[in-house]
C-alpha cells in the first residue's frame, strides 16, 4: 500500500496521490459514527431551522408557505424580541463577571488552605453537580419564597425576590453564580496546581511578598486559563434557559425572559415554529459573532506571547 503511494509521489501531482489513498487512511472509518450523529443532530437541524425560519410553519408542520424574510422583519420590529435579547445580554454580563472573579478567588483560597482542603473543594463544587430543576425548586420554593423563605426570614425583609421586576434578574444571577461557579473554580484550581513550585521558591529567595507573587507569577501564569474560562462562561451564559424558565418563567413583566425562552414560548406554546426559528437564528448569529471575536482575541494574545 505504501509503495503505490510513495512511488508516484515524487513525480505525479499531489491531487492524484491523494485520490489514490483509500479512505480508511484518513481515519474516516473512525470518525464516521461521529459524523453521522453530527450531521443528523446538528447540520441537518441547522439547515432545516433555516428553511423553517423562512416559512410560516406551525407546530403541526402545516401552514408552511414560504414567506421570505417576513419572520426576520417581524422579529426586528418586535419589542419583546429586543427585550428578551437584551435580557440575555444583561444576564451574560451580570453573571460572567462574578462567575470568573469568584471562581478565581475561591480557587486561590482553597489552593492556599492547609486544613480541610477537600471540604472546601467539595463545598464550592458540589452545587454544580445539581440538575437545574433541583436548583430552581430549591431557590424558588425555599430561599426566595415570599413570606416564609430562608432569605426573607434571615434578613427580616419582605421582598419579592423573583416577583419584583427590578430584582428578579439579580436573584436569578445570584442563583446561577451559586450553582455554576464550581466549574470555573475547578478549572482555576487545576491551573494553580500546575504552576511550577520553583517559580515561587525563586521569588521567595529574591524576597518577593505574597502579593508580588500573586501579581507577577500566579496571575500571568493563569492567563490562558482565564481566556478559556471567559469563553466558556460567555457561551454558557448566552445560552441561559433552564433556571430562568423554571424560576420565573420569564416574568415578572418580561424582566427575565431570555431569548431562548422567547423562542420556546413562540414555538412550543404559541405554535409559531417559523417565527421561533427566525428568533433562534438571531441568537445564533450573535453567538457566532461572539465566538469569532473571542477566537481572534485569543489568537492575537497567543501570538504576542510568542
Amino acid at each position, binding site marked *: 500500500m505504501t509503495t503505490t503511494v510513495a512511488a508516484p509521489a515524487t513525480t505525479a501531482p499531489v491531487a492524484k496521490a491523494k485520490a489514490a489513498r483509500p479512505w480508511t487512511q484518513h481515519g474516516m472509518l473512525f470518525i464516521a459514527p461521529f459524523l453521522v450523529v453530527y450531521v443528523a443532530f446538528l447540520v441537518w437541524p441547522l439547515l432545516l431551522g433555516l428553511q423553517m425560519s423562512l416559512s410560516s410553519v406551525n407546530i403541526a408542520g402545516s401552514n408552511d408557505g414560504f414567506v421570505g424574510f417576513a419572520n426576520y422583519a417581524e422579529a426586528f420590529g418586535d419589542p419583546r424580541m429586543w427585550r428578551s435579547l437584551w435580557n440575555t445580554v444583561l444576564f451574560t454580563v451580570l453573571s460572567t463577571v462574578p462567575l470568573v472573579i469568584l471562581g478565581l478567588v475561591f480557587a486561590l483560597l482553597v489552593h492556599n488552605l492547609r486544613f480541610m482542603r477537600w471540604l472546601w473543594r467539595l463545598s464550592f463544587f458540589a452545587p454544580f453537580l445539581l440538575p437545574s430543576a433541583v436548583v430552581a425548586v430549591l431557590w424558588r420554593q425555599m430561599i426566595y419564597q415570599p413570606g416564609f423563605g430562608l432569605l426573607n426570614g434571615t434578613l427580616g425583609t419582605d421582598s419579592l425576590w423573583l416577583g419584583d421586576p427590578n430584582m428578579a434578574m439579580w436573584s436569578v444571577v445570584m442563583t446561577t453564580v451559586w450553582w455554576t461557579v464550581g466549574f470555573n473554580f475547578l478549572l482555576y484550581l487545576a491551573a494553580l496546581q500546575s504552576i511550577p513550585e520553583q517559580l515561587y521558591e525563586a521569588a521567595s529567595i529574591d524576597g518577593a511578598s505574597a502579593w508580588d507573587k500573586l501579581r507577577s507569577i500566579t496571575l500571568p501564569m493563569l492567563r490562558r486559563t482565564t481566556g478559556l474560562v471567559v469563553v466558556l462562561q460567555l457561551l454558557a451564559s448566552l445560552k441561559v434557559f433552564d433556571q430562568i424558565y423554571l424560576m420565573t418563567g420569564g416574568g415578572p*413583566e418580561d424582566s427575565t425572559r431570555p431569548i431562548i425562552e422567547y423562542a420556546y414560548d413562540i414555538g412550543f406554546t404559541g405554535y409559531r415554529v417559523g417565527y421561533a426559528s427566525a428568533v433562534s437564528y438571531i441568537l445564533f448569529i450573535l453567538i457566532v459573532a461572539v465566538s469569532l471575536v473571542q477566537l481572534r482575541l485569543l489568537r492575537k494574545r497567543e501570538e504576542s506571547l510568542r
Partner: protein
Amino acid sequence: MDDIPPTPHRTPTTITRRNLLGGALALGLLSSGCSIPVGLGSSQTRVKYWHFLGASDGVIMNGMVGAFAKENPALFVEENVLQWGEPFYTKVAMAGAGGRSPDVATFHLARLAGIGPGQILDPINLDLLAENGLRAEDFSPPIWERAHIDGVLYAVPFDAHPMVQYYNTDVCGRAGLLGGDGKLLPTKGTDQLLESLRKAKEALGGKPSLAFDALGLGTVGPWRVWSSLYAQSGGTLLSDDGTQITIDDAKALEVLAFMRTLGEEGLCDPTTDYGASVAAFQNGNAAFLWNGDWETTTFKLAKMPFSMARFPSVFGGASAQADCHVFVVPHQRARDPQVERATYRFIAYLVKNSADWAVAGHVPAYLPALEQPEYLALQPQSEYRSVITEVALDPQVWFAGSASRLWIEFGEAFSPVIGGTRTPEEGLALAKNALRRLMETPNPFPEER
C-alpha cells in the same frame, strides 16, 4: 413501538408526581426485566388516554378508569397523567402533528379554537356517539354549541368548572356569617362582601380572611377573579367576531380598584401563590377561598369544617369565570376501528357516570346527571350547581382558554395591582397592551377552508 408502561391502577390514593414516577419506573424495570408487559393480554383492546387531572380530581378520575376496567374486562385503558397547562397542550399538539396521538384526551373547551381543529384534533364520530347512547339534547346547550367549530363537533362535553367560594364553617360561624340553616348568608355588592370579610378577619384574630392565588410563576388567579367580577358588571373583552377590543375601562378599573382594596386592607394576602392559598384555607388560616371547584376532594380528605357556595355577586350579575373539561380525539394517521369503538365506549361511560365525577367538585355538562339523586345528595358539590347557566366563558379566539397566553398575560398584569406595586390604571394598560399584541399575532392555525 408501544413501550410506554401503563400507569398502575391503584386504589384511590393521592397521585403525587413522585409515586407516579416511582410506579412508572418500577413498571419500566419490571417490563424490561421479563419483557412481557404486565396486564396487557393480547386479547385486550387498548385505549390510550391522556389527561391533566393532577389536582385532587385526579384521584376521582383514576377511580372511574378503574371502575370502567372492571366492567369491561376486554378493554384496557392506559391512563397517562400529564402536567396541567401549557406543557399539556404543547404535547397534544406535537403528538397530533405526528399523527401518533393518544386515542382520547381531556381538553379545555375554550382551547378548542386555538388548536387547529381538523389538524391537531379529529372530528367526533357522531355515529359512534349515538351508538353509545349520547345525544345532543343530553348536554347543556351553550356548552354543546361551543364544542362545535364551523358546525363540526370536535369535543364531547364533560363538565363545567366555575370559580366558587369555599368557606370555613367554623370561622364563619364565629363571625356570625351563617344563616339558621348553617349555610353562608349570601352577600350582594362590594360593601356587604367587604363587611363579611372584615368580620371573618376579626374572628381569625386579624389574619387575612380571604385566600386566592394572587402571585407566582404563570399565575392565573388574578385573571380568574377579575374575569368573574368584570363579567358580573356586564363587561366584555372582545367583539363577537374577535376583531375589536371592547373592554369598558370604567368597569374594568372599578373591579381592579376593588381587588386592590382587598390587598390594601389586608383582607387577602397579595403574596399568596396557588399552593399557599389552598394551604391557608386547609389549615384554617383563612375563612374563604376563591378558586375553581376542583379542590373539593382536598378539603374533604382533610376532614375540615367547610362548605361551598357560588362565587359572590359583587358587581351586579352573579356570573363566575369558568372553563369546561371536554374529551377530544387527537389526530391519528390511521385509526383502528376496534380501538375507536372502545374509545367511544369509554367516553360514553365517563359522561354517563358524571355524577361520580361530580364528587371532584365539577358541575356535570351531561344534563341527566344533574337530576340524579346521587348528584343532588352530594354536599357541598350540589350547592353551586345553579351557576351552570351563568358561567363566564372566554371569548372564542385562538389565544384564549385555560393556561392560554391570555390568562397568563392578564394574570401577570393584575397580580401587582392586588399587591399595590402597580396602580389599577397601569395594570389595565399592561393587560390591554398584551391583548392588542395577541390580536396582532397571526394565528398559527389559520382556517384552511
